[in-house]
């Protein structure tokens, strides 16, 4: 894949689906992103024309179809609140597609025979997209872990799309009681990989669980971002090859290259 720098596009909200009290699926018409995005890439989304909020909000591409793409937005603060309350018909500004996705994150290394996908909460978004693009690679476990109450919408949404979804919740109200990692196999054979996205704690637990297999774990990370184009160096992550930008060198890294202990919690 040749590198393309992200661009800014207007994007019409085609559908605004409130999945549950805090989770919204936004379907956006935006050929510029829809034509090129790959799983693991994300967009920087802005609502309105003012400068407050100032910065775009990074959200993973969760699906593509024709000239549209979908994001799953979990409301945590003012930016996500604004985005998820943008009605159909209104316009957002999109910078994208941003970043290096699951495929490109290990350039040259062929895809493994089997991939297990593990999402924590709305971190499931890029994995949903990845799942649709896996081709010639077997899908192992597909696991979604959530806190429980308040996550009905997302789990339903994911369940409708993935019949084989293993669902875990901490409070036991959705799927099995437990953590996402409970659904993973004991060991990770050489020809298998795990792709994961979710809360930092989950990813760290993953690295503890498979200490010898970090090179076969691909993680999609988060970081505070300003530019979404590799310019500000605001999103950097300490790695074995120095500081790397989550927005453009990532967000997908192998668990092996991340210096977990130097990363701020």
């Amino acid at each position, binding site marked *: 894949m040749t590198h393309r720098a992200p661009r800014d596009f207007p994007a019409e909200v085609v559908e605004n689906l409130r999945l549950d009290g805090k989770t919204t699926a936004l379907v956006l018409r935006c050929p510029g992103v829809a034509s090129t995005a790959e799983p693991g890439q994300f967009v920087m989304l802005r609502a309105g024309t003012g*400068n407050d909020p100032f910065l775009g909000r990074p959200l993973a591409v969760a699906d593509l179809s024709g000239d549209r793409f979908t994001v799953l937005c979990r409301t945590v603060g003012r930016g996500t609140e604004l985005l998820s309350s943008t009605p159909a018909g209104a316009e957002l500004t999109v910078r994208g597609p941003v970043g290096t996705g699951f495929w490109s994150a290990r350039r040259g290394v062929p895809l493994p025979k089997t991939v297990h996908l593990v999402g924590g909460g709305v971190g499931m978004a890029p994995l949903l997209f990845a799942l649709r693009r896996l081709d010639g690679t077997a899908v192992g476990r597909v696991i979604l872990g959530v806190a429980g109450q308040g996550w009905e919408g997302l789990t339903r949404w994911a369940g409708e799309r993935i019949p084989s979804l293993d669902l875990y919740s901490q409070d036991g109200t959705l799927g099995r009681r437990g953590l996402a990692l409970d659904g993973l196999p004991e060991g990770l054979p050489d020809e298998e990989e795990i792709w994961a996205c979710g809360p930092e704690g989950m990813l760290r637990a993953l690295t503890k669980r498979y200490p010898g297999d970090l090179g076969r774990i691909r993680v999609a990370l988060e970081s505070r971002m300003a530019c*979404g*184009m*590799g*310019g500000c160096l605001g999103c950097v992550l300490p790695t074995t090859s120095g500081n790397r930008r989550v927005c453009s060198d990532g967000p997908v890294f192998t668990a092996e290259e991340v210096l977990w202990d130097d990363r701020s919690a």
Partner: protein
Amino acid sequence: MTGRPDLMASTVGGLPLSSPVVIASGVWPYDPALWTADRLEGVGALSTKAVSLAPRAGNLGTRVWETPCGMLNSIGLQNGGVRDFMERGLPVAESAGRPFLVNVVMESEGEVSECLAILGGQRERIPAVELNVSCPNVDGDGMAWGMTARSTAKAVAVARRSWDGPLWVKLTPQAPDLAGAARAAEAEGADAVVCGNTWLAMAMDLQKRRPAFQRVVAGLSGPAVFPLALRTVWEVCGAVSIPVIGCGGVASWEDAAAMLLAGASAVEVGSALFTDFDLPRKIADGLMKYTAAAGIESLSGLVGLGRKNHEGGERR
């Protein structure tokens, strides 16, 4: 661009600019895909990320934080050092086909001389240097140089001795006597002053109940600071005869026009590019229409007009 782009052209501090919009230091990556004509419409020149003699890893922990109409950064001058720049950054910068400035951190006198000597070794490839005496995000050097007229003079004198091309000096708005610092830069041979850098500020992380940044303070930029930056531009334009480049919060052609009316010869645009790639073109277009509508011949007619009108002193 609509209208007559040649009316936007000028030479500022030794650098021929096709548009008065300069991309500020530290915001534009060395990504070849972004140094192409179609990604740089309306851009007169670009300033690189700060370059120091040795590589710098920058600051740990949180580096950016959103604020009302702005943002804080505590990057801490992360860069690969001047040799890395020569090898990997310079070719990208050259590919853009328009002037650029190498933003050089004022470190110790020895370091900056050495750094400039390395740049000077390829003098013909480097259109200009922007001496950064104003970074608030490092200890010891950085902004400290720009805080007084005296230390500014010393910094500029060293740089001037080591670099004979166009030299812009990027001042810090934290300087208590900013006009004095600007005059010192002029006296020591700066070709232009950039006014200015980010504003010292901070953020608190309410979840962690502690400052968001490890160094506590960070630099505020974006539209929030525009009225502050404009005031400093007004002050500095009243103090020096070399060109002044307005920098801080420019996010629209109106902001750029205000800077020019206050006396700036050009503007630098930083954070606003984080929300709009197309801003330089919009600024250039807007300025062109504004000057035309005002019956002003060319860009230079705008520069300082606000001051002239004010000093003309008609009753309002």
